């Protein structure tokens, strides 16, 4: 019976992979090379220096390093939009150097294990753009999702990391630190969070103002797009909206889901979650938060297919009110990341306001509602928002966990240099997001400024399109892993503000990281040995050739 299940599951998985790859087009249409032929040169795509100065540099360094094994590579920096289109949407690329940033919802291992490596995710818009299809990884990726016991799940995640490291569909080159800076003469007690640094929600709550009017002036790298909790599309939007709106759970500084609006919770069986909410919570307009609002929020997000939460909301069978302050959430299937990634992210919205949206504001869809005067129940309420300049949010003192500062002024700076200058001059107190490493080193010399790297679980990674030879060969990919000069990249390009990459789950992510998965040591001789053992040969010009026997 057990065997039978496995076989069926295997067929299902390979079936979807085949289907997806046929849809994907160019990715699959690659002919097998002639035995003994010279290994063709390839392109290494990445974003331009305008978007991130690190990327083209690393791409060039890698391209140069691969010459040591007799393989020609061209670094190919193009506009990031085109990267996304070619790699994620069309699967028309050879290799891609990209940053998988460390958002809180990526602390749960599901994103890097399942989404980046399960064969069903090789589809337009999916995260397995490498096209890896390994039945063992697939099995582990599915199993870790369904295991609700954290300890048991961790064992599965550990095994998956080993398999993924062996498969080398992507090489995590470096875990970059969250390079943040703040004025130590103006603010203190900032609680950093994994992957969020001192721009974290916990820093928003914990920081205290030493001198000034009590407001913390925070530099933003890009414009706040809107304040609509239902229309969130990415993490930089999420970082601001989460101050105004609360969720049932929050992800704590180490990445664990902790009850937030929820007072207590209970999981009687893997498909059922009972939640009791705190009493006495208020909306910013003074009305009480009720259990009706909680149910309404689930229904509303589901009805209007809130993009950020859609895939997880599809797992919810029903939400039932079971008492004055309690609800029961029933799932269709057990789903381990549910607490962190849905309940720790989806915002609870006031029924008395959103029941009229979009109809009563003359719209046909709530995604078109900017919600520029948001009413939430979070620890900050929005005073004003001048789009393109700044917003001001003031502490909501009636909150059950009120902020220590008077509020936050979020200011848009047009460049990293402008942000660094403003911090240096004391016009700004704190960075919200990462700052260019070279600027961080400059700021370290400034009096009354703390500038340093904070732990992060995101990483720079070199992704291989494993459906294109020679990248189809795992031995070849392992040889590449030994060729990449990680130490040089970190010292010379990342100013030392990063750590050598090994597993796709970073060591900073303490609970989930498998310490047995280590970085591949840079050793060109070893790389050549692996290639030679796999049958590859070199010609007189030292160029690499495929094995003579297929």
């Amino acid at each position: 019976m057990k065997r039978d299940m496995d076989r069926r599951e295997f067929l299902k998985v390979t079936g979807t992979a085949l289907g997806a790859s046929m849809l994907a087009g160019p990715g699959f249409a690659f002919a097998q090379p002639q035995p003994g032929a010279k290994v063709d040169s390839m392109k290494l795509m990445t974003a331009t220096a305008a978007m991130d100065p690190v990327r083209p540099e690393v791409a060039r360094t890698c391209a140069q390093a691969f010459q040591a094994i007799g393989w020609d590579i061209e670094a190919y920096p193009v506009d990031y939009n085109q990267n996304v289109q070619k790699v994620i949407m069309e699967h028309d690329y050879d290799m891609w150097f990209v940053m998988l940033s460390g958002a809180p919802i990526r602390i749960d291992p599901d994103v890097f294990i399942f989404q980046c490596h399960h064969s069903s995710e090789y589809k337009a818009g999916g995260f397995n753009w490498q096209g890896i299809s390994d039945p063992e990884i697939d099995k582990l990726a599915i199993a870790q999702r369904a295991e609700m016991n954290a300890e048991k799940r961790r064992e599965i995640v550990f095994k998956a990391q080993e398999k993924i490291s062996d498969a080398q569909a992507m090489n995590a080159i470096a875990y970059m630190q969250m390079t943040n800076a703040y004025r130590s003469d103006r603010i203190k007690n900032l609680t950093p969070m994994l992957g969020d640094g001192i721009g974290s929600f916990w820093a928003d709550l914990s920081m205290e103002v030493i001198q000034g009017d009590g407001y913390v002036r925070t530099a933003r790298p890009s414009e706040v797009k809107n304040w609509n909790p239902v229309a969130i599309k990415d993490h930089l939007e999420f970082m601001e909206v989460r101050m105004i709106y609360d969720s049932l759970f929050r992800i704590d500084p180490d990445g664990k889901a902790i009850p937030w609006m929820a007072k207590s919770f209970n999981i009687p069986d893997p498909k059922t979650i009972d939640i009791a909410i705190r009493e006495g919570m208020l909306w910013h307009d003074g009305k009480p938060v009720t259990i009706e609002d909680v149910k309404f929020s689930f229904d509303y997000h589901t009805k209007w297919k809130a993009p950020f939460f859609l895939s997880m909301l599809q797992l919810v069978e029903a939400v039932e009110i079971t008492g004055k302050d309690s609800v029961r959430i029933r799932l269709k299937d057990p789903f381990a990341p549910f607490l962190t990634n849905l309940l720790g992210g989806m915002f609870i919205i006031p029924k008395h306001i959103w029941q009229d949206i979009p109809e009563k504001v003359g719209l046909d869809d709530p995604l078109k509602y900017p919600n520029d005067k948001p009413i939430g129940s979070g620890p900050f309420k929005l005073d004003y928002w001048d789009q393109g300049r700044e917003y001001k949010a003031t502490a909501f003192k009636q909150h059950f966990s009120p902020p220590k500062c008077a509020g936050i002024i979020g200011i848009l700076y047009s460049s990293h240099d402008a942000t660094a200058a403003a911090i240096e001059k004391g016009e700004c107190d704190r960075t919200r997001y990462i700052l260019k490493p070279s600027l961080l080193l400059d700021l370290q010399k400034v009096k009354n400024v703390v500038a340093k790297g904070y732990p992060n679980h995101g990483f720079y990674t070199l992704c291989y399109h494993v459906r294109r030879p020679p990248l189809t060969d795992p031995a070849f990919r392992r040889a590449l892993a030994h060729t990449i000069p990680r130490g040089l990249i970190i010292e010379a390009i990342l100013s030392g503000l990063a750590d050598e990459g090994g597993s796709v789950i970073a060591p900073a992510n303490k609970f989930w990281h498998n310490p047995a998965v280590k970085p591949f040591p840079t050793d060109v001789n070893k790389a050549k040995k692996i290639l030679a053992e796999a049958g590859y040969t070199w010609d007189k010009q030292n160029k690499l050739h495929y094995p003579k026997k297929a």
Partner: protein
Amino acid sequence: MQEYIIRRILYTLMTLFAVATILFILFRMVPGDPTAQVISPALDEAAQVRLKKAFGLDQPLYVQYFLYLKNTATLDWGRSFSSARPVFDILIYRFWNTIFLMGAGMCFTLVVGIGMGMVMAWRRNSPLDLGSTLASLVLQSAPPFVTGILFLMILSYRLDLFPTGGMLTPGIRLPPGLALLFNKDFLHHLILPTITVAFYYLATPMLIMRDSMLEVLGSDFIELAKAKGLAPHVVMIKHAARNALLPVLTVSSVLVGFAIGGQVIVEQVFSWPGMGQLMVEAASSHDYPVAQASFFLLAVLTILLNLVSDISYCYLDPRIKIGKEPSA
């Protein structure tokens, strides 16, 4: 005359239609699917389909085009893809900020440029003339992102005389509009970007004024005025400068057009929340409604200024007569 004005207005409308169409095509030629950028690829397929539908990106191109033309004609530019706010609301705030910066910069350029040009011609070949010519050419060759950053480095970081950027000190908020012009904090933030703009464009009106003045100064009526025993400054300002102004006027309308386009860089250097910054953001994030509307608005502004200068020319220069055959 009337016929000429009507014809010019008709031409203007046709130009605007062409500009609108070119903008529509240009933005769709930018590499990368708009939906890939506006709509985060991190979302799963169902979520992407859902977003495309909400913003009308699932419609065929020609439908999007006609909708866009209709919206442009009625000045209802719809809603931003990224912020969901009405485009009109977004633009109006940014528009005023740009106009203030541009207005200040251009006033400075024209007043100083014309004044200097006048004096330079009057004292031709003096050290002042040669020095100013050299200085203005150097400034014109230095792009605003260089001068702007130099100003910031010296006057802001080192000497601490001015803020590093922005339009107001963080935490201060004023309603958009003319009230801003009477606010000390705003004016303090306005100075550096204004002189950056002014220094870059100064050479054009200054040198044209100088040349045009020199031409006028060689005329007989200037000799006559001097011979009449008029004070030198009266001759310079009342007789020479007034007659020398026409070419400067022509060139200044073109100059303002250039300056509005060049604004993008100055706003970026000084984190000025104007149209330029908005255009950069909107274009790079494929926010079509905002990008199209802001580029279109700039085109309207430039074309209108040209129209006004063309028409005003007929009134200012009595030698220009339109529609009448020269009588023998």
